[in-house]
């Protein structure tokens, strides 16, 4: 065959291959309009009063019987939830035969990078925009939490801001206002217990945060360390800023957990629910928790009804929240995007999340100038951006949090000196931040 003819043939073949490649890519990123059907929704554990997430799903199923959503509530522990979602998604990606697939993931705001990098979820495309999901509808900080490498991968569903709950009845009886800083809170705990001792009463536990060895410990540790002048993971290339302040923060936490300290030792086992239970049982004067706890504490049948006050956390706070994303393994991505649009943009659903779950709305339009104590606390928390503590945005966040949990847990249990913990964090965090 003449050389020229051969060259032309090769060129045609190469061009055809390129067209096929781009064509396949185009085909996989867009979906046919008939890509609908039943889906699985791996959702956050429903802490709302009256199971509002479950009710929203039931309402969807009523209207869309041929696109039924199966709501699979995940573990209450965020670490365990993440493991389940990642393992299932990886299994679906690698499987050569049909396996379990969660079509819609409810992702903690810190997991966007990991799921995006791992190709476990698909980015928003025209499908999502056709379903009414638009950036301009959402609170900017919430929208940004679903971005990674200039692409939008997830849609905001729930925002979480930490609040400080307190025994209003006790503080009022002592004529004390709510604390305005961490040090103020510690001082008030000491004062109240001194007065109780003088009056022949048993002391009350001071502050209950989430100090069990899980993601909650990372969040609480970051907040308190920042409140005491230090910072962890502020800069990926310098994970500990001002080592002396971080060491001092650790020392103060160890002291707080000792006999007579301002944190009861039981707090080393607390997660969100157990700390709330301790507060409800009258074991705590102050509690740091998410807004969902307010609804449960102030419900009519709650033992704490009428006795609880709430303010924005009076020290630097870590924002949380959950976004919704469509899984790469989903065979019904049209339904998945429509369902996400329903949960995130439907005013009724978002109102229920606020009313019965205490979750601040993700929609800008849902904010109105209500002035009750709870809404004031949330608004203060959301607008106090200068107080926000950032967790590192990295696809390897799980490993980073593991390192922090490991070292802080050892310090709090007196298994490790604060100085050694800081040294370990300096050594272990940089590789963890890069997936090593």
């Amino acid at each position, binding site marked *: *065959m003449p050389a020229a003819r051969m060259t032309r043939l090769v060129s045609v073949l190469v061009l055809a291959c390129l067209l096929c490649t781009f064509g396949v890519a185009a085909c996989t990123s867009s979906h046919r309009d008939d890509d609908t059907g039943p889906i699985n929704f791996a959702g956050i554990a429903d802490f709302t009063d009256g199971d509002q997430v479950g009710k929203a799903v039931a309402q969807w199923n009523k209207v869309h019987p041929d696109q039924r959503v199966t709501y699979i509530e995940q573990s209450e522990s965020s670490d365990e939830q993440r493991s389940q979602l990642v393992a299932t998604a990886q299994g679906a990606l690698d499987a050569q035969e049909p396996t379990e697939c969660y079509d819609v993931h409810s992702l903690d705001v810190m997991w966007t990078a990991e799921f995006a990098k791992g190709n476990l979820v698909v980015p928003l495309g025209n499908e999502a925009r056709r379903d009414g999901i638009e950036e301009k509808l959402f609170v900017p900080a919430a929208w940004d939490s679903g971005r990674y490498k200039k692409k939008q991968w997830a849609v905001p569903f729930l925002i979480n801001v930490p609040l400080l709950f307190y025994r209003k009845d006790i503080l009022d009886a002592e004529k004390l206002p709510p604390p305005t800083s961490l040090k103020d809170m510690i001082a008030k705990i000491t004062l109240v217990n001194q007065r109780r001792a003088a009056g022949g009463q048993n002391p009350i536990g001071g502050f209950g945060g989430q100090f069990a060895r899980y993601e909650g410990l990372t969040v609480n540790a970051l907040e308190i360390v920042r409140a005491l002048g230090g910072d962890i993971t502020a800069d990926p290339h310098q994970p500990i800023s001002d080592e002396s302040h971080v060491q001092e923060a650790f020392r103060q936490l160890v002291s707080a957990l000792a006999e007579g300290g301002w944190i009861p030792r039981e707090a080393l086992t607390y997660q969100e629910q157990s700390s709330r239970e301790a507060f409800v049982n009258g074991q705590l004067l102050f509690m740091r928790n998410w807004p969902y706890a307010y609804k449960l504490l102030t419900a009519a049948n709650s033992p704490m009804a009428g006795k609880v006050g709430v303010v924005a956390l009076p020290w630097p706070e870590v924002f949380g929240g959950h976004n919704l994303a469509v899984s790469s393994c989903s065979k019904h991505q049209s339904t998945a995007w429509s369902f996400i649009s329903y949960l995130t943009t439907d005013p009724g659903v978002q109102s229920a999340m606020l009313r019965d779950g205490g979750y601040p709305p993700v929609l800008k339009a849902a904010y109105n100038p209500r002035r009750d104590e709870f809404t004031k606390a949330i608004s203060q928390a959301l607008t106090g951006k200068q107080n926000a503590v950032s967790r590192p945005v990295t696809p390897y966040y799980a490993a980073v949090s593991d390192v922090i949990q490991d070292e802080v847990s050892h310090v709090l249990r007196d298994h490790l000196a604060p100085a050694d913990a800081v040294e370990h964090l300096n050594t272990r965090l940089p590789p963890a931040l890069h997936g090593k």
Partner: protein
Amino acid sequence: MRSGESAARPGGGERSRIQLSAEERLDFLREVARAYRTEAAANIVLEAVGIPVERRPAWQNVNPEQWWGEVFQDFDAGIVASPYRTLMGVVVRTHPGNETLHRLAVRHGVIKSEGGDEAPDPAGRPAPATDPITPAGPADATGAATAARPDEPGGPELDGDPAAVTFPRLAAEAAGEAEPPRFPGRPSDPADEDDGSPLRRWLWPWIAPLWRQAKKLRRKVQKRPKVAIAVVVLLAISMGFFFYYEEQSDDRCGIPTELVLSASADTADLMREVAEDFVKSDRDHHGCRREHIQVVSPSVAGGTTKALEDGWPSEDLRSVGPYPHVWIPSSSVDVNRVKAAIGKGNTDIPLTTLPSVMSSYLVLAAPSGLAGQPGWDDPSAVSLAAVVKQAENGALRIVREGPETSTEGLVSTMALYQAAVGAPLTRSGLSGGGIGATLHRLEQATITSDGIGDPERGLGCQAATSTAPDFKVALMSEQAVFAHNKTPSCGVPSDQLTAFYPTDGVPLLDYPFVMVGGRRWGNPKREAVARRLHDFLELPETQSSIAAAGFRPAGGAPIDLSASDTGIQSEVPQAKDQPGPAETTDAADELEKAWRSARRQARVLFTIDVSGSMAVSGLDGVTPLDAARQAIGPALGLVRGDDQIGLWEFATRLDGDRDYVEKVGLGTADTGSGSRLDDIRQALPTLHRENGDTGLFDTIGAGVAALRAQGGATTADAMVVFTDAINDKPGGTSPDRLAGQLNLPGAPPVRVFLLAFGEANCSRPDLQPLLAGGATCENVSSTDVGKAVERVGSGLWGIH
């Protein structure tokens, strides 16, 4: 058909053209293909003929004949003038011994025959008149001599010895001084079979096209060097940017494979540490983590086992947690239970058990205040049966976890029950008569701890903080003793613990390593991670870490203890007659039922008929009333301090309108002087026959109501009625109504036991509705009423 040079040649004459017949052309083609069967050789010849490089066919997926066939077609098309003549002149001189070529050359006047005559045409055609070709000079190396020179019939002339001058390589080949150029064709080409290694022959068809293209590209580059340099520079710059960006990128590493490891509460911390060590040691060549291991512990007692037995229901992930991919329970008992569920078809989760990597014995842990006292001075000389007796006598209390709290609790309960009963426990053994009462006594002497996750309320702290006269000994793992002694965490001052290894058997917790697979979450990558983790756990360095945490190697092997006051022994204890995991599994379900039943608090109302008929002596001279009083004494031995008891006597209207008198009201039995047990013993002799009728049914109704007023699902409520089973109170409640009261929907159940003196009194017609409603009746006499009371005890605390 004849083929020949068809193109007109300027200045060319008839005699420069060769007219080959079809047969001649074919012969010529074959011989040329044989003579020049490689591309290199062929190209040299075509150079001489004057065919330009770009006009030559590509040597791709063709054999030499096919290739030369294409060349001949080009000849026929007039690619150059007189190509056949020129080619023939070349080939016949380089292959003078080739008869076919020689014949053709002579015939067509390319060369003279040796005889001076031209070779005859095999077909008999006259030889064309031609002049012999004159050898020309060397071919133009650049191939520029493509156009026929005006003074030539066509193509370069050959001059001198064509092989030596024009084709020195060919001459050298002919002389055997050089290797012919190699151009392997297809692997099936016989000419190539002895060229190069088999690997090269296998690879060459794939590389050859690229090789040829590269050579063509090289020629093009040689023509346009500046363009080529610019392209190379651009590529280099792009690659440089790419690698620089990659180097600077913070997330080059991929997302690690996720693996969930479910560990028992006592191993979770250790597993986290070794898992982190494993991940660090298992990085890829870029230093990236290959896996992320999430260590979880069951959130509810027995959670992992139960969830696996149920197929790990998706709808309950909130309570059961994430699917485990690796499971390390305390004992193979749990694994066998899941496998039994698989065998029954309740679940399809496949389990693969790899060799265990650690173990620990179940021991009796005594506080230092007790250890060293008589009977507790030798850790190898204490029997569990003797300790159980001491507990039942109130000398101490045994603390352990319940069988539904943990596997350790299940194994502990098995050991305790075996020690109490004095025989290996099997499924049938747990349902035998009298066992229930024995186990109830035992449970009253032990404390079941459910303090998961709270070390201050754990077994070790309960034992370590106990003092005389209320010592507690804990049935716990040897590793837990080690951990307590290393770092006491009871919140208050506490003693060291000493491990005692019972002479009647020391169960072993074998911590099996189980891979959990299945279609839902089986994954080859994840399985590979699990296997690498297992291999890591078996490494000597990891085994040292495991030993440092107080665990033995697999199989209960001796442990290397670096410290001296660990409270445990390093050598292997004597283990006798302990049920293995399989036997324990077999009886596990029945054991749990027996435990639940034995643990229930008994509330028993003894009710004695004191009507006239109960004072009639039998042949042995004993009245039913006397027999009842005598039988109640042993019955009181069935109850323990936490149980509740009471004593009524009844006839008709003994207390106003009431048929019964409360001799001792229902309340906690307690033990010792001044207890309710004593009150009852003292009240019994005061029971006297009363004349009159018997309000049996009304009294039963009142007794059931009194028991229900304070009873519930956690208590075993019973009314034991000693009577002659005659109800002759006029106007009292009917048996049907009483039966309805016994089976009141939603009301706590109350067992009614009638011990009826007299033959066949249980067959009385008026009793039948009551018996149909669930009451039990046994005909007794003064001689066998005691045994009947024992059977009542089994009914109260036996397996339901």
